[in-house]
């Protein structure tokens, strides 16, 4: 049970960490100043969530690893994030679509985790849910704006959707970790999560005049530590200081 809990906390923490990292790459380069600020806000929230989840993961593991040890000193195979969140930022449309597909999962997920039998998870989920509602509102509005904006923006965001669709399918990857935690009540009501995600996604895509891709292939691996080529580069930057100057306080 502890092992499954640790594993699941890494999934939650790493999703936030890696997506927070990706969004932070936008800082100073956003398409308008207002959006630069918005993307940085998302990033800050996600890094805050990563800190909480990884801190708790370290405690559950019981080997004395801190949130920073977990964030900065694991190797790529030990990261448990979705492949979706490590996809490169691309243009603003790719970033927004990646965010939307993720937010549409995170909001119903946190709505469930608020009722988790694990009090710490419930507390982190309650705080994160407030943030995630804003994230979803922001990303949905942009998907609609870009989808129903100009011909160019429609094409770009449709292409982003087509590219990311197979990665979104990994959101619903499940294994023995989920089974163990469901049984213990740590993960309540998970059987309707997918339907909630679909409801959000399909209604926004419809309003955005976008077509749902007919590609049913699932690109999986992240939850088991098998990543894309991109994670290595993220880690090279993320871990640079901790690797170059080990065992120092900053």
């Amino acid at each position, binding site marked *: 049970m502890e092992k499954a809990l640790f594993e699941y906390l890494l999934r939650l923490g790493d999703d936030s960490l890696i997506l927070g990292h990706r969004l932070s790459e936008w*800082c100073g380069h956003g398409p308008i100043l207002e959006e630069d600020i918005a993307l940085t806000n998302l990033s800050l929230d996600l890094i805050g969530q990563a800190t909480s989840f990884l801190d708790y993961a370290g405690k559950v593991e019981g080997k004395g690893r801190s949130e920073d040890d977990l964030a900065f000193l694991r190797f790529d195979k030990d990261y448990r994030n979705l492949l979706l969140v490590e996809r490169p930022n691309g243009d603003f449309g790719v970033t927004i679509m990646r965010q939307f597909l993720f937010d549409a999962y995170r909001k119903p997920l946190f709505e469930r985790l608020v009722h988790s039998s694990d009090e710490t998870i419930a507390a982190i989920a309650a705080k994160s849910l407030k943030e995630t509602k804003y994230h979803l509102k922001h990303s949905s509005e942009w998907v609609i704006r870009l989808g129903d904006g100009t011909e160019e923006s429609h094409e770009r965001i449709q292409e982003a959707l087509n590219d990311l669709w197979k990665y979104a399918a990994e959101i619903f990857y499940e294994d023995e970790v989920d089974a163990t935690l469901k049984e213990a009540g740590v993960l309540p009501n998970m059987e309707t999560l997918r339907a909630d995600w679909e409801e959000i996604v399909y209604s926004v895509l419809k309003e955005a005049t976008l077509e749902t891709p007919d590609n049913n292939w699932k690109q999986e691996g992240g939850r088991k530590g098998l990543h894309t080529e991109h994670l290595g580069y993220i880690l090279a930057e993320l871990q640079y200081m901790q690797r170059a100057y080990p065992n120092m306080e900053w």
Partner: protein
Amino acid sequence: MKELNIDELKRRFQEKIDNDIKIEPKDWMPDDYRQTLIRQISQHAHSEVVGMLPEGNWITRAPNLRRKAVLLAKVQDEAGHGLYLYSAVETLGADREETIDDLHSGKAKYSSIFNYPTLTWADMGAVGWLVDGAAIMNQVPLCRCSYGPYARAMVRVCKEESFHQRQGFEIMMKLASGTPEQKAMAQDALNRFWWPALMMFGPNDADSKHTQQSMDWKIKRHTNDELRQQFVDITVPQAEMIGLEIPDPDLKWNEETGHYDFGEINWDEFWQVVQGNGPCNKDRIDARRKAKEDGMWVREAANAYAEKRKARLAKKAS
């Protein structure tokens, strides 16, 4: 009401200034005053936005989660400052987009300090401590500037800058009390940023073409040299406190004046960097231009969508 002649308008304007009454956007003001403010405030806004880049350079490499979050929040504040300052410029009748185009074409300047590279993590400390520290010296008096919207924007900006300065100093303090490698990293950052920070106050008073008029208008309250001296006097003891050495062999306390004497600034370097020959001038402007060009389709889409929405709502209402 009979129309006032220009001399009478000028007299009343100066009277307000002399009595410390704020000038507001709709008040009459001399064209030179307006142009000076547009130049100064837009330059200030550009500095905030370009200033995001050298620190943004280390966000993805920050050494731990707390530092990463603090740095992100700090750079985000700079974007916020840029926003209120662009709004203040707009109250003077200037257009935000045109102002930004002037930055991209090289017509408008920004603070030259941001043309220096950030090479190590310690630079995040040095920039916060010295660059934000120098900016505060310049900006605190602007909270009393005669132009209302600028003065009010500066009150908020200064509060945040003072937090930035403290976080920068805290990074330096941590490094200076760390391992020999960390301390060397901190000293190296101080060595590189000290002189450019002193240059942030602008040319010596004798060579500063805008100072006197700006002081009469109470846009500026202290001269460049006064502010620079104040900065040196405050910063030197801070460096001593954390055991770092100011890279100036001529620096010494002067009992008579009650100030530090310091060495001559390399004004050749200053003017070269202002004119575009700094280590990062091109990179900074290219990054801003690229952000604008890459974002063009996004802004167009947002406008197109807003138009469609308006049309749909109008159709519904009719």
